[in-house]
Structures are given as structure tokens and as C-alpha cells.
């Protein structure tokens, strides 16, 4: 749920809040559990509704984005919900070169921007940008292969 909300566009704090709100609604509802998949779909729909409810500007474009996220979730959702997607990513990180992995980790782990990474690794900013782009492409291909998408 949290990851779905983050992909929709919430920052970490908003995703935390909305996750709680989703479960609070769930608790108040008279939902009858039929299957885990049905429950997850119900929770995701509630999350999407609460998320969109807060968007006041240019809703059509944000809805278009949310539709794209939902379409992606319908194909990879099971892998996302079970954590398989993240586990695949964990394994795929090992396939990157040390340099690429270092850049990816600095970028995502510490929130270092490209200028800082470039300075610390003695690279150009464009070089960092290119390395990140390549690393993402490799990870994408690897994850798709591992999750069978």
C-alpha cells in the first residue's frame, strides 16, 4: 500500500498518512474478505480515491498518471504486493558494476544530487547522469526477466 502510494506520487510522509487513512476506512467499512487479492484491490482502490481526493489542480493529468500506475500494477501488482519485485531488484543490484552500484546507492540512499556525486567520484555531472541512466536500464531489464513480466 505504501509503495503503491509512493509510486502514485506521495512523498514518504503523505504515503504514511494515507496508508493509515486507508486502513482506518477499512476498519470502519463492512468489507467481507473473499480473497487476499480482492482485499488488496479494495485497499488500492480506496488509496487511489483518497489520493485523488487531495489533488485540486489539473486533475485530468494526474488521473491519467494514476491510470498508468494502475495498469502497471495490474501486470506487476502481484510481484509488488508480495515483495518479489523488491527482492528481484536486490538481486539485480549485484549485477551492476561496482562503479554503477556506487552511483545508484549514493543517489538513492543518501539523496546526494548528481553534482555532489560527480565531485566525490571525480566525474563530470553528465557522466553521472549517463551512468544512472544505464544502471536503470540494466535494472529494468533484469527485474522484468526475474519477475517474468
Amino acid at each position: 500500500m505504501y509503495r503503491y502510494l509512493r509510486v502514485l506520487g506521495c512523498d514518504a510522509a503523505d504515503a504514511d498518512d494515507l496508508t493509515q487513512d486507508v486502513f482506518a476506512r477499512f476498519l470502519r467499512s463492512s468489507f467481507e474478505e473473499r480473497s487476499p487479492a480482492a482485499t488488496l484491490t479494495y485497499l488500492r482502490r480506496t488509496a487511489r480515491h483518497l489520493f485523488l481526493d487531495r489533488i485540486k489542480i489539473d486533475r485530468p493529468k494526474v488521473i491519467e498518471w494514476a491510470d498508468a500506475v494502475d495498469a502497471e500494477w495490474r501486470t506487476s501488482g502481484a510481484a509488488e504486493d508480495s515483495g518479489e519485485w523488491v527482492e528481484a531488484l536486490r538481486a539485480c543490484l549485484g549485477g551492476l558494476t561496482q562503479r554503477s552500484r556506487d552511483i545508484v546507492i549514493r543517489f538513492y540512499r543518501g539523496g546526494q544530487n548528481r553534482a555532489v556525486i560527480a565531485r566525490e567520484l571525480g566525474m563530470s555531472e553528465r557522466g553521472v547522469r549517463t551512468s544512472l541512466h544505464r544502471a536503470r536500464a540494466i535494472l529494468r531489464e533484469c527485474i522484468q526477466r526475474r519477475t517474468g513480466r
Partner: protein
Amino acid sequence: MNSLRDEVFDRQLEVALEELLAPEDVPIHDPITTNDNPRPWHGLAFVALAATVVIAVALLATRGNDAETTEPAQSAAETDTEGEALAPEQDPVWPEATLPQLLEALDKNGTRDRAEAELVRRGAPAADAVARLALALDPETPRARERLASQLRVLRGLRQHAAHHAPALMEHVADWPVGGCADLLKTVAVLAPWSPHELEMPKFEMSFNEVKLDSKVMARGFEIPELNALHDATTMFSGRKHVRPDQSIPRLIELLESENGYARIAALEMLGTRGADAMPAVPAIEACLSSEDHPAINKAEWVNRQSVRIDQASSTPEIHATAAEVLLGLAPDTPRAVLAWRHRLAGTGTIKRRAQAATRIGQLFLSAQLSEEHRAEVLEALEEAALASDTRLAAAAITALGMAGKGRKSAVATLKRIMRGENERLRKLADAALRQVIR
């Protein structure tokens, strides 16, 4: 549409990488201002930013005192810290700091804690830089002991990244008076399992009046706690050195049943650094977390000029804490991980970490099949967190209590107490949770 799908995939990747790689002790920062990641919706950067602002304003309007709250970062991921907490207004964006800036900050009271935490996050490059500082530090310089302690906390937090410095640190032991010597030995003991070299403890002869290292008298004028710490460091070293970097997963699993508590802890830590390879150890780690039957650890207590008393301290709390964090690294979604999440909820981590733990407990509790005793432990932790002064933590715990606390009288009392409180958001959540608990 294809390009939008690509953008969604990129966003999934971004979020998962943050989740996988972000150390959760780090204070939350806003990626919009500190990182040039693209926003999620393709071609909608301005719209996204505007929408985010609207959301933020709406949340601020409804959240009352639910502003972003984080506790001071844990210093170097350890609990034996002595540094001062950084005042919020002095909180810079530390990921932006260069290594030399962090090393400089390490030397200042006001910035030390944050610098330690950030250096631990930096991994190997930080290990080399901090080890160089520690090895070059002259014991005669002002505040040398305090500076060494801080540097060694970082090296202990860095674990395997700093392990190749263990032999040099061990050689450095003789240069320091008893207090620094004990701290160095403790660090060597922590790093020993990952050290590529077999390490031998120097021979100590300890008495109330003097300490000899390899028959040579060390500087006098030490305090009793330093003598105790030196004794404990040698005990820790002798336990942890049973764990080696080349040991197989089955061997490490065996060591989880060692007669030495320190060996169990070191084996858990080693499993935690083996990634997916350590998955076969998950049941044994869960057993460690559930068991109360862990060996005692010897703790020295010099009682008079002639004798030292060896107390038997329980290793169970430390083993539980270590097992919990290792399990959450390996298999956070298994039902048995509820006990590990409880440890994190009841721990001293950031509000964010603790609130996430409460939420995960709510999701996993019903399928966890816990014993009555463990059920009670988990629910007590939720009830305590539900009464926390921080709204985010309390809200997460109340929600989880609604999902997990069915039929529990003390949960009813806790929720009713919250419903009498002043926070409207918490009152509403407690009302919803109470309906579930008494249903």
C-alpha cells in the same frame, strides 16, 4: 502510452531503491529539494509540484500538531553514544556534506552525532578516512579520548567496511591509556568477525593498581569503569572471534546455538551481511528471537583492591535486538517477523521507523500465530505506542491495535482513554479501532 509506462517503471524503481537502500535511521528529507530525481508523472513536473504543495497545505491544515517529527538520529547506529543531540535548527542536509566536512563535524560537539550517523551510511570510503584519523590520533592531544571514542563508534557502526583496519587498531592498543585501550579493543572485537586476518588478543594482567599489557605496565591513573570495560572488551573479543568471514551459512546457523552469547550475536550480524544467501537461516533467526534461553555474558565488576566479581548478565535482550534487525533485513513480510517489528516499535529509533513498525504489525499480526505470551508482548507495545505524544506514531499504533487487538480488555481501555483526549484525528481513529476490537 509506452513512454508513460516507462515513466511508471522508473518511478517504481526509484521508490523500491529508496526502500531497499535508504537507512531508516536517517532523518526524512524531501527529494524535491535535496535530490534531482524526476517527479513521477511524465511531463507534469510543474503540475506535480503544485499538487504536492496543495497536499502539504491540506495536511498541515488538518494535522494540527502532526508536523514532521523525528527523534535525533541514533549515533553511529549504536546505543552507547555519549554525543549531544543536534538542535533542529542546526540540521543541515547531511547527505550533501563532503567526506572532509563530515570528518571536521565529527570533532565538534554540536555536529558529532549527525556526522557519525552520516559517516556510517557512507560505507567503505568513510571507514578508510576515519580509521586513518583514529590511527594518527596522539593520546596526548587535547580531548584525544573523546575524539577517539567518536571515531571508534563510527568504525563499529561500519562493521565489515572497517574490518580490514582491525589489525592496525589492535597494534594501536599499546599506545593508549586503559580507557582508550578498552575502547580500541571493543572496536576490534566488533570488527573481528569480518577481519580477513586472524587476530590475537594481547595478554593483559589486570589489578586495581595497574594493568600490564604483554608484561609491560600501562599508564596508571585509570578509573574503575575503565578497568571493567577493558575486561569486558577481552571477553567480547574471545566470543566474537569464533565467527569468521569465510564461514558457511550452515556453520553460522550452528553458531546461533553457541554457548557463548557474543558468538551468537556475531553470527547473527554476519548473517545479516550475507543478503539473500542467508535466507535459509531465517527459521533459526526467528527461533533466536522467540527464545528466552540465551547464555549469560560475563561482566566484570571490580569490587575492591584485590578482587573482581564476574556478574552473569543476560545476553537475551541484545540477541533479541540483533535478531530482530537481521530478520527485518532478510524477511520483513513473514508473519513471524511480527516479533521483530515489535522490537523496532519499542526501540529507540526514529518516529518514522517506529510508526512503520506499528503499521506492519497491524498487517501481519493475525496470520502470525503467536504464543499467548508473545501476543501479549506485541499488543502491550502497540498500546504503549498508541499513547505516544507524537501523532504519527500514535495514529499508526491505534490503527494497528484495531486490526490486532480484538477482544483485548486493555486495548479497549487504551482506546477509550485516547477518545477522551484532545486530538480530533486520534479520537476518530480510536473510535474506528474500538469498533473492531469489541466487534
